[in-house]
């Protein structure tokens, strides 16, 4: 079997396994939620509602059915791509929750990733290309510090400095409440404002996006910086690089044309996984900056034992992670001929 046939076969197997993984995720989430102490009727109706009202409410939403029947109903709905309706906002479909909140999360994740890649790769290159110098030590320190600092703390400090003291950025939120928000086309304000040709809205969006994405991006950049630095250092000591030097190729060209591309391969793997986790787990950033994203909504749903919303959002996040890992594998296989399946 040729390499490309093997790759095609591998992709097909991965795609076929994806629904199985999603089923496993949905089942685990379903069971874990039911095993968690606390009843949605108590969490949502509160302590003062009489037991009869709680019973009626459970009946109305099918929560009084046996667990297996609830599971069968849930899986049946999932097969029809119906994630159910929120228990807290009765009447609102979970898909609608995703449609409403996901664009904000995606926009923050994309912009943070751009910052993380730019800063991480840039500092990684500087650090690796000047071993033993101040830049190298500085890069190492940057990697360790950004990797270990807690997001919420850095977020608050940056808010205090750049929003409260200097007043350069808004302290929180996604868009100015006193201006009309970009007309919804994709839900991504940056894209929507460009599509509608409104530059003022575009800059307002960037103004609001800057602080959370810089915070999250810089903290994530440590991972990329470390990977690039370590890999680039190793690559710069490889035989083929020595050979290139011996041929008199300028150091700058060796670095960017020969060494860096090898050093960047592991970044793809980390990039995909970090991006997937960012989409699902940027809760601290969202809470710190009042960013109206899906992770924030998930936290709220968990607190209120809103089973359909939690299940729906986690399956959606699961879908993203599974999808991202498949894309990474394919990309890795494409760019690195050493990978075999």
């Amino acid at each position, binding site marked *: 079997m040729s390499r490309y046939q093997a790759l095609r076969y591998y992709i097909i197997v991965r795609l076929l396994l994806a629904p199985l993984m999603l089923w496993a995720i949905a089942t685990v989430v379903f069971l874990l939620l039911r095993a968690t*102490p*606390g009843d949605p009727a108590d*969490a*949502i109706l*509160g*302590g003062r*509602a*009489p*037991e009869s*009202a709680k019973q009626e*409410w459970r009946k*109305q939403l099918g929560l009084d059915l046996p667990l297996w029947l609830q599971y069968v109903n849930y899986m049946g709905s999932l097969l029809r791509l119906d994630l159910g309706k*929120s228990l*807290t*906002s*009765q*009447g*609102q479909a979970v898909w609608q929750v995703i449609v*409403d*909140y996901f664009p904000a999360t995606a926009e923050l994740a994309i912009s943070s990733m751009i910052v993380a890649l*730019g800063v991480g790769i*840039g500092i990684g*290159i500087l650090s690796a290309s000047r071993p033993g110098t101040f830049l190298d030590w500085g890069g190492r320190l940057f990697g360790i510090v950004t990797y270990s600092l807690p997001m919420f703390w850095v977020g*608050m400090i940056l808010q205090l400095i750049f*929003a*409260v003291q200097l*007043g*350069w*950025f*808004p*302290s929180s*939120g996604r*868009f*100015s*409440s*006193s*201006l009309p928000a970009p007309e919804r086309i994709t839900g991504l304000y940056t894209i929507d404002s460009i599509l509608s040709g409104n530059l003022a809205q575009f*800059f*307002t969006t*960037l*103004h609001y996006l*800057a602080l959370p994405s810089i915070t999250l991006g810089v903290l994530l950049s440590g991972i990329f910086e470390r990977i690039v630095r370590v890999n680039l250092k190793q690559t710069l000591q490889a035989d*083929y690089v020595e050979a290139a030097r011996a041929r008199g190729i300028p150091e700058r060209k060796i670095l*960017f*044309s*020969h060494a*860096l*591309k*090898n050093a960047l391969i592991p970044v793809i793997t980390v990039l995909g996984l970090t991006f997937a986790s960012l989409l699902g787990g940027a809760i601290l950033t969202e*809470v*710190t*900056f*009042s960013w*109206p994203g899906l992770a*924030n909504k998930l936290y*709220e749903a968990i*607190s*209120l034992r809103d089973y359909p919303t939690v299940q729906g959002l986690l399956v959606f996040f699961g879908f993203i992670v599974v999808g991202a890992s498949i894309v990474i594998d394919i990309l890795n296989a494409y*760019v690195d*001929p050493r990978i075999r399946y």
Partner: protein
Amino acid sequence: MNNSTGCKILIFKNRFSSLAKSLGGMGKFFCLFGLCLFLVISCGKGSQTTVSTTKVASGNGDRITVGTTLRPRTLDPADAYEVQSLVLVYNMSDRLYTYKSGSTELKPQLATALPKVSPDGLTYTIPIRQGVVFHDGTPFNAKAMEFSIQRFLQNGGKPSFLLKDVVDSVKATSEQELTIKLKKPFAAFPALLAFPGVCAVSPQAYELGAGKFQPSKFVGTGPYKLTQYGTDLVRLDVFDKYWGEKPLNQGINWQILSSPANLFNAFRTKAVDVAYISLEPIQIKTLQESAKKGDWQAIAAQGSAVKFMALNRNQKPLDNAAVRQAIAALIDRSIINQRVLYNQAEALYSMVPTTFNVYKPVFKEKYGDGNINQAKQLLTAAGFSQSNPAKIQIWHSSTSPTSASAAQTIKAIADKNMEGILQFEINPVESATFFKDISKGLYPISIFDWYPDFLDPDNYIQPFLECPKGSLANGCEEGASKTQGSFYYNPKVNQLIAQERQEQNPKNRQKIFTEIQAQVAIDVPYIPLWQSKDYVFAQNGLKGVQLDPSQFLIYKTIQK
């Protein structure tokens, strides 16, 4: 270099050549571009309104931006039961009755007069206002009000039990008259009709039927109509066909922030005109101090929420009334208020708050504050000593910082003064579990808040003390006191509650409430700790910022 390595280099070279060129050639460009973009974005704030240096957020016309951490769960009045939803419903709707400004006295709103009550106290006849239209243009009449109340009852929303337990039937007896029959007499019923959820909604926009809710729209008759219900912003515009007094602003932007810290910062940077619920006590203190210097305005109002401890009489040693009384004597409300809330509350000595004229400081009269000697005497007489201490667990929701601080302060008072005779153990528990387990009787002492559904002393008495099924030996088996975790059962109190609910004469009701309060101070099923004070902060230049007695911010009086 061998051949295979050379091949790899060639393959990589092809696949990454564009990237390498970009990185090599455009590195400087990217750095420069990034720097320029940063400067453009950060310096571009001059054109924005949120970080304005003017006294009130500018560029917003006469619209008011209210910052809050309250994210509404739903805007459907038949399902809204939390302050975050009700405050919006309250400002967009009209009820039959509402409260007079700054008081708990009712006044007609969609009704034209207070109800006529039949001699048996079961039938309420309400005259209905004419010339009112809904936000969708549908005319309002008694039939529409009947529909709204039926929907509240039948759709089975979160607060539906408030009326279900009381109302037997609702009928529009003419175009301008509504007749409501009750299952049993309930003197506080008109106050129940002032609950924001019992507002008029358009029959054209809503449906009757269990679970048929509209969480993201609102069509009522109030001074504002809903124009945007976003993930972090709710926009209300003035309803130009409103029958009553028009709002003094052009609309409200309800900006939802995710934490008190964000609200605090947003207000300080003048990104919002008004900061309204929830700020931490330390943040309120800081804002108050700045308000004294003239940086902004601080508006404080007496709140209607109360914080109390429920003592489970079915758990040892709390089955002994002397132990419950000893704890009541030990509590020092001034220390708690100072340490936990920076004096941002009012010490409370009865289950009924000071808002009502029936309030009697019975706990102060009987036990005082921090009466250590009395506490020791009561415990010693009950057989407790250093070698045989009374050990009691206090439970609270882990999401309530004030409950946690209050519990710690009470424990510290006991540790410092009680010489080991009384020992507390503090246990926080996740809120969903906490509220689930209270009625199961798992907690000896639990600390929590009570937000009233309607402003009548009955709403601070009946939901805590009534128990129709129980015994003196086993406590409450079914009833409100079981739900609140005290398992209190006293036939005399049950009888008094039934009397006050039937009694229409305010003076006679006052006497009954006095008797109930006195009995609570003796039996100590609950220990009241404090009554909230509500704070709202407004930028300088704003006028008319006020809270109603139910702690709702009134939008229509705010003016720039």
